[in-house]
């Protein structure tokens, strides 16, 4: 940022000017027999003129380098960054010492660096803390070194009164201009940050819209998948069951005609029909099998269920707590499938309609019944429109003589019941 560079350049020039001024004055005092009376005025041992100037240059170069590294430190690890920052503060203190604390504007450079670098959430607090900290450092410096520093006035007093006034005025102008530059820098910085925030807000809005569209598209896609599934089912039924039934009907028609005249032939024919029916049944089983989720085939049921919830939690960002209180000894494939689908539908609804953050999924068996409760902390629903999802769940459950209940509480709660121990039914 240009103002930032300007601030550094300006401070660098002032510091060098001040140091040069002190250096020249000290040499002049020495040459004009004023050394003893100068020493009377000062509470500390002055550094040799050239040495103090070199120290200033050194400290300034160090501070510029460290400040630069600090500002570039995207690549550096955070703790190194802190180290560099403290080194920068150290070089700042050294620089102030080298010019006998005659100018403390360099402190603002450090503040500018903090502000430039840090854009996190607690920026205001950090700024206040940094300002206070640096203020205390500079004052502490004053307090501790006051007895150990050559006052600027001692240098000034070497010159005649009119020149003294001019010099003091010049120094005050330097300080004021520095503060003005700093304020401009801060204003620009805050403005820049504000614009950045505005930009991020706009981007967020766009992202929200995109999300909404995506959701609509997902619903659409699901509907299409449903249609496709229906078509496939129709095709399957037509191809397998339809085919077999057509064959059976035609065979049976023949048998009806032939049963009186040729019982033996009819008998053979009936056997063929039975084979056809059996094949048809196998085909139906195969078709049904194709509809089952892949996980249900590959994994034990409970693991498949856990995996499904975990995957959903991971992809949707919801917290899903899966609790099992009593697991039935054995489950039939169709029961497994229904349970699987109910759970899937339940948590999908919680996410989609309830916008829930947490879902408590509990499965327990008692008194010959398996109970599934899916409770979310979402928005719930005032009057539940029984959509395709809920109706579908109900239908699936009713096939197993089960039932479905749902109501609003802290969120939306769905309860499904399936009677157990009816293995011999099939």
């Amino acid at each position, binding site marked *: 940022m240009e103002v930032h560079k300007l601030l550094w350049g300006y401070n660098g020039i002032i510091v060098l000017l001040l140091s040069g001024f002190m250096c020249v004055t000290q040499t002049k005092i020495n040459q004009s027999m004023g050394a003893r009376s100068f*020493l009377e005025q000062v509470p500390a041992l002055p550094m*040799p003129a050239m040495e103090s100037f070199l120290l200033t240059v050194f400290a300034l170069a160090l501070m510029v380098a460290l400040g630069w590294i600090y500002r570039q430190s995207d690549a550096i690890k955070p703790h190194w960054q802190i180290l560099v920052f403290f080194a920068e503060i150290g070089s700042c203190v050294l620089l102030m010492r080298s010019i006998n604390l005659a100018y403390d504007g360099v402190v603002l450079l450090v503040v500018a660096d903090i502000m430039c670098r840090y854009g996190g959430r607690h920026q205001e607090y950090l700024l206040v803390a940094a300002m206070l900290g640096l203020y205390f450092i500079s004052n502490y410096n004053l307090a501790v070194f006051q007895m150990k520093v050559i006052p600027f006035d001692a240098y000034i007093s070497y010159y005649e009164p009119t020149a003294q006034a001019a010099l003091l005025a010049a120094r005050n102008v330097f300080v004021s201009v520095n503060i003005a530059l700093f304020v401009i820098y801060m204003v620009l910085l805050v403005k820049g940050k504000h614009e950045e925030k505005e930009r991020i807000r706009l981007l967020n809005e766009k992202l929200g819209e995109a999300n909404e569209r995506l959701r609509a598209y997902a619903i659409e896609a699901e509907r299409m998948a449903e249609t496709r599934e229906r078509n496939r089912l129709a095709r399957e039924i037509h191809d397998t069951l339809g085919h077999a039934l057509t064959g059976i009907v035609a065979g049976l028609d023949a048998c009806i005609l032939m049963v009186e005249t040729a019982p033996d032939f009819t008998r053979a024919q009936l056997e063929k029909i039975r084979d056809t029916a059996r094949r048809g049944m196998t085909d139906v089983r195969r078709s049904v099998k194709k509809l089952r989720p892949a996980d249900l085939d590959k994994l034990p049921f409970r693991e498949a269920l856990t995996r499904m919830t975990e995957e959903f939690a991971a992809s949707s960002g919801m917290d899903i707590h899966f609790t099992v209180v009593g697991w039935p000894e054995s489950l039939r494939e169709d029961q497994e499938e229904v349970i699987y689908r109910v759970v899937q539908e339940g948590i999908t609804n919680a996410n989609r309609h309830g916008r829930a953050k947490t879902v408590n999924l509990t499965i327990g068996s008692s008194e010959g019944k398996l109970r599934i409760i899916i409770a979310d902390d979402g928005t719930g629903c005032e009057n539940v429109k029984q959509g395709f999802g809920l109706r579908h769940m109900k239908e699936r459950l009713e096939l197993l003589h089960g039932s479905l209940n749902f109501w609003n509480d802290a969120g939306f709660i769905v309860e499904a019941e399936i009677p157990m121990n009816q293995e011999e039914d099939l």
Partner: protein
Amino acid sequence: MEERGKGQHRSMFFAVAGIILLLLAAVAYYVQGQERVLRIGVFAGNNWGVPQGNSYAVLDEAVEEFQKEHPGIRVEYVSGIKKEDYAEWLAEQVMGGREPDVFFILSDDFNLYASMGALMELSSFMEEDRDFRTENYYKAALDYGKYEDQPYALPCAGVPTLMFVNKSLLAREGIPMPGDDWTWKDFLGICRRVTRDTDGDGVLDQFGCYDYTWQQAAITNGVTLFREDGRASYFADARMEEAVRFMMDLRSIQKGREITSKDFDMGRVAFRPFSFAEYRTYKPYPWRIKKYMDFEWDCIKLPAGPSGRNTSELDTLLVGMSARTRMPKLSWDFMKKLCYDAGLQERILQDSQGLPVRRDVVLSAKARDIFRWETEGADMDIDALSEAMDEAVMPPKFKGYRAAMLYADTELTKIINGTIPFNNSLNKLQKEINAMLQY
């Protein structure tokens, strides 16, 4: 993105390399300044304001011995700096960071340099050096090199104030020579007896004392004028009042006649306070003849006041070490050579006008020899001299001391001369001085 990251890394490398180079330069700058020359700061002449022939005799001796003991070290000093120019010279060196490793310190400069940290604090050297024992020094001399109770300089030579006695005059008046334990009463009595008009022209032409100051009266009456930190004064002390009254009594004897140094040189004054340096300068052969040829004289201690002792201020010449010296150990060794070595301290007695600050050296047989040889019979009692050194008090040397004393002197002279009425004037003076000392 990749390209930019690379550029950044290269710049980072340069920045780090730059910092390392800077640090190396700083170290190199520090190291190159080290060489094996020990520099000494010294002024020509002596500290006591008396003429002196070869003023560098003792120093040259110390340098020679030191170089012999430390081969490879060269000791350097700038000769020919006059005492009145020395303060400015030293200040310029200090400001330029070129001050000598070891230097003589004028009384006015000591507090200035000690307070601003130009002088090395010496207590650790003293403790670590097993040959060095502070008890060997006269206390007032050693204390003179302390600032806020820490030693910053070693005494090299000291000069107490004695009382010059015109023996011929006393003999003429039939008055016995007073002893070293005499008092104000004796002093006043003798002054009264000798102050008279000898040639009968109606004008006083013989006097008791010349140049006896109220400061000397105060010290011999046990007055401490200033608190140690130089922030308060004790002019209203009852003993100070005694001293002022004594000064007024002394002055009243002269009946308004001002005594001049000419009266003294002509042998018409019985007493005059004399520094030991003056004694050493005028007592030996050539000077004695030249300056005071008409009368016999000798020195005794100052008379004691009713609440004090036969004591005086000890004017001490200090030697300090620069806090920025690169050879502190060698500097200490040189300071020790100059200020502690028994042989060198003897040389001070022999070749300069000051007194050694080591008690054992002053009291040694060799010192007695030197004294006897130099003063040819009319000798000064060396035990009494050592006693005077032991009892001597250290003059204050805080920053505003000179200004405060100047003001006090003006006011007290007025009081003693009777220009200002005496009652309560000391209280007033104390208040005024205290106000001065607050700045």
